[in-house]
């Protein structure tokens, strides 16, 4: 591991001079409840993306494609604001294997 900087090398006052560094601090381990989204019910209204305080909702081309679990703290705001109740909060210890790595599952199995 690289040596951490000494007091003569650090910016004063505890300042961080590079922007966007919060991404390097992974807060997903704080989570008790994990959000899972039923993509058969989800309408891609993106209310979850709008309200998420940790920018942990993945969106690709206007479609909600799941969660960034490295940063999602499990606050449950997405589940609360979801107008079609497509998001459920599941205890980390009891999470099912139905969902993919980004937390998406399909309630209606497509043939």
């Amino acid at each position: 591991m690289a040596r951490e900087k000494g007091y003569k090398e650090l910016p004063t006052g505890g300042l961080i001079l590079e922007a966007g560094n919060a991404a390097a601090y992974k807060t997903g381990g704080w989570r008790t409840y994990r959000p899972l989204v039923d993509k058969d019910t989800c309408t891609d209204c993106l209310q979850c993306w709008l309200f998420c305080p940790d920018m942990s909702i993945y969106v690709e081309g206007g479609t909600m494609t799941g969660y960034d679990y490295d940063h999602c703290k499990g606050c449950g705001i997405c589940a609360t604001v979801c107008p079609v109740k497509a998001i459920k909060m599941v205890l980390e210890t009891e999470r099912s294997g139905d969902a993919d790595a980004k937390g998406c599952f399909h309630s209606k199995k497509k043939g």
Partner: protein
Amino acid sequence: MRQIGPDVVAAYPITPQTELMHRFSEFVADGIVKTELILVESEHSAMSACVGACAAGARVMTATSSQGLALMWEIVYIAASMRLPIVMTVVNRALSAPINIHCDHSDSMGCRDSGWIQLYSENPQEVYDNIVQGVRIAEHPDVLLPVMPTLDGFIISHTLERVEILGDEEVKKFVGEWKPSFPLLDVDHPVTYGPLDLQDYYFEHKKQQAEAMKRAKEVILAIGKAYGDLTGRGYGFFEEYRTKDAEHIILCLGSSAGTVKSVVDELRDKGRKVGVLKLRMFRPFPDGELARAIGHAGAIAVLDRAEGFNAVGGPLGPEVKSALYKKSGADVCNYIYGLGGRDLSPEMIRTVFDDLAGGRADARQAIHLGVRE
């Protein structure tokens, strides 16, 4: 403050600071100074607004007293830790309870370990001089620490005395322009102020603060000398008054130095070798310099205008003893005086010098001067 023309002042009124801010707000209202004056709902908010404005890149000043400073406490530490060169004049007033509006140093002594530079003043002239120098000291790139010039409530703050002031342009030139390195308003170079700092880096940041406080000593001397070149009133860490050959020395802060000086003159006329050392700079503490200045004395009395409630003495007494440790054989006695604005009379000072001369200066615990039993 009018001559310095800070970008932002955030303040809340409290006796005896009220007069100071009252006058300044008149200057703002009359358009004589172009300061953004933020009137807040408490001192906690005042210091918070000062921190925000200073981080944004503004030159910031404020003033408070007593309970106001106590309410600011949390943010006072943050200002110093974020290395924001705010200048806050503290008009010294006793802390409650019981409620008291008059002078003692318990308010500013309470934040002696907060990382602020503290400059005490004997009279209105020194208050003016310390505030002007304070801005330049705080903003010096080797320092970047907030500065607290203090003055004794009512004794100095509500006294009319002639003060020599510089011209507006001279003050502006002396303090210079504040050029912050990392202003938050520089949106092209975004930085983070006040992030989480745990076991890995917090200690290093505290070490930086401690080092800045050490460097401040040299800067304070240089600026004190530059101010002397400009005004004829040079400043050091302390003023030595008839101490060179003195056998008995009183060490004190603030306005009481004037009274002690007059007693020293009176006793010198009677052939007694007495002197007074008036400490101007309490933070950083001039440890070695103090020992060199008064170590030759046979006995020293340290006058504290605050009680330390440590069963030993006031805040100044033990620090002076520690500065003299292994450097001087002098007996050192700590006296607590003037709490809640009680006068320090020449008679009390004579008693102290008599104690020193009579070999009664070896008390381990502080003596409370002029208190009734």
